[in-house]
């Protein structure tokens, strides 16, 4: 697997990361090395191994359909970068 500069730019864009040129070069090399390491798994015979669904071997953890208390509005908006009345305020979309 060879990671290209274009792929790093694409993933950075999807993650809304503004990378400098030298960072793109650095991460291209790092990501390539990481994926090459993961590729080692392909050397193993895994035909008889069940894919891991979850690291904790359990299922069906569910809750009842019951309404509980929410947060107070001051707590909801406490960390918001901007607010107006009871709303979060964000740069205009649309």
């Amino acid at each position, binding site marked *: 697997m060879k990671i290209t500069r274009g792929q790093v730019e*694409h993933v950075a864009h*999807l993650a*809304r990361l503004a990378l400098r040129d030298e960072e793109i070069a650095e991460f291209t090399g790092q990501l390539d090395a990481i994926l090459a390491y993961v590729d080692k798994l392909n050397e193993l015979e895994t035909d008889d191994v069940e894919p891991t*669904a*979850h*690291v*904790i071997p*359990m*299922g*069906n*953890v*569910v*809750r*009842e*359909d*019951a*309404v*509980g*208390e*929410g*947060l107070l*509005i001051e707590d*909801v*908006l406490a960390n918001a970068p*901007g607010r*107006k*009345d*009871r*709303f*979060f*305020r*964000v*740069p*205009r*979309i*649309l």
Partner: protein
Amino acid sequence: MAYETIIGLEVHAQLKTRAKIFCGCSTEFGGPPNGHTCPVCLGMPGVLPVLNREVVNFALKTGLALNCRINPFSRFARKNYFYPDLPKGYQISQYEHPLCEEGFLNIDVDGEQKRIGITRIHMEEDAGKNVHGEPGDPYSYVDLNRTGVPLMEIVSEPDLRSPREAAAYMRKLRTIVRYLEVCDGNMEQGSLRCDANISLRRVGESALGVRTELKNMNSFKHVEKALEYEVRRQARVLNEGESIVQETRLWDVERGVTLSMRGKEEAHDYRYFPDPDLVPLQVDAAWIEEIRASLPELPDEKMQRFMTAYGLPQYDAEVLTVSRELSDYFEACNRAAEAPKSVSNWIMGDLLRECKGDDEALAHCPVKPEMLAGMIRMIEQGTISGKIAKTVFGEMLKTGKTPEVIVQEKNLVQVTDEGAIAGLVDRVIGDHPEQVAQYRDGKEKVFGFLVGQVMKASRGKANPAAVNKLLKEKL
């Protein structure tokens, strides 16, 4: 050039649970902005979502009603994208292992039944709502009450061949989720939403053409109109020798056209991966059987029963079973009236004209099933004429009084006494010598006029059969 239309629908149905899908916040519509939120649905760091079991029950009900295979193993995945109404930066959805797959739904178009395949049904969380300020306001405002409200996405196979079939499919789906009481089916309020994939291909070809995805159609009428527009647009593009661009287009209700979303970002690169916060879901046979046992009689079965048990024509049975409320109304009314076809006629005519096919209106209609039944019994027994019954029905609507009281108060009992009717007939014959002469000269049409005069003289209360008979005799 002749083209075949290929349509597949993706329908999002908001599930009527009390609490959200992964937390205990209320799903109630219209609360104060951000009043139904907690650390889980706000996407605070370090919280753990836990699946609401009722969401699975509702999706299972739908899957069984739509003849799906229920997957014994299913799990949740993160769908990653950025938007202000999505606080976590990802939506919890299902991807590789949805809860239900490979079902079908039957629709009727022009008297022909057609089977439409269901590809999959999966569960996911809804996003919040963005409120845009006045033009010129540099901000938008976010309300996260809807964030985490459970949705079920129902994806059809590309089996629909016309906008009409697509609309019929949507209607049928709405009827079913409402029968199951898992979704209120309100398209205008967004509890049932529809996206469509549509493409054209030349008749006779087997490969699918390039498709567009249509969004923003918030009523059955708009689903049909938007698809009709898109069929015409794609045919025009293809006829000009151009090719269709694969893109998302928005239905513009005001202008009646679909518009490209080009320019806006279309992040189709969602980088799904299994959500490590949620353990897999295993549905065993016992759980499935528990749900199967709780299924109500479904619209298709009920329609068949209405035809065989009550001898109703298919059209009547279809109209009456469009909602549980309406079919219950019919059955309650018929239990007392025991005249299925008359009951059906009055419901499909006068009652539905008043209630406009709206179950809310039906529930609040002053004419209760027993009242309509009482009125129909009076017609069947000859106490009132069908014509007078229209007046009685109007009065029941206005006043909520029983038909018996109305007939007595307004003195509307049908006159069947031949002596009384004969007197009126004599008077009408005496008052209209000209028409009587015309009738005797062979102008049969005048007879209807004379009957009308007698009825009028009796203020609608004379028994029409008796009037006919006496008038014939005396002429």
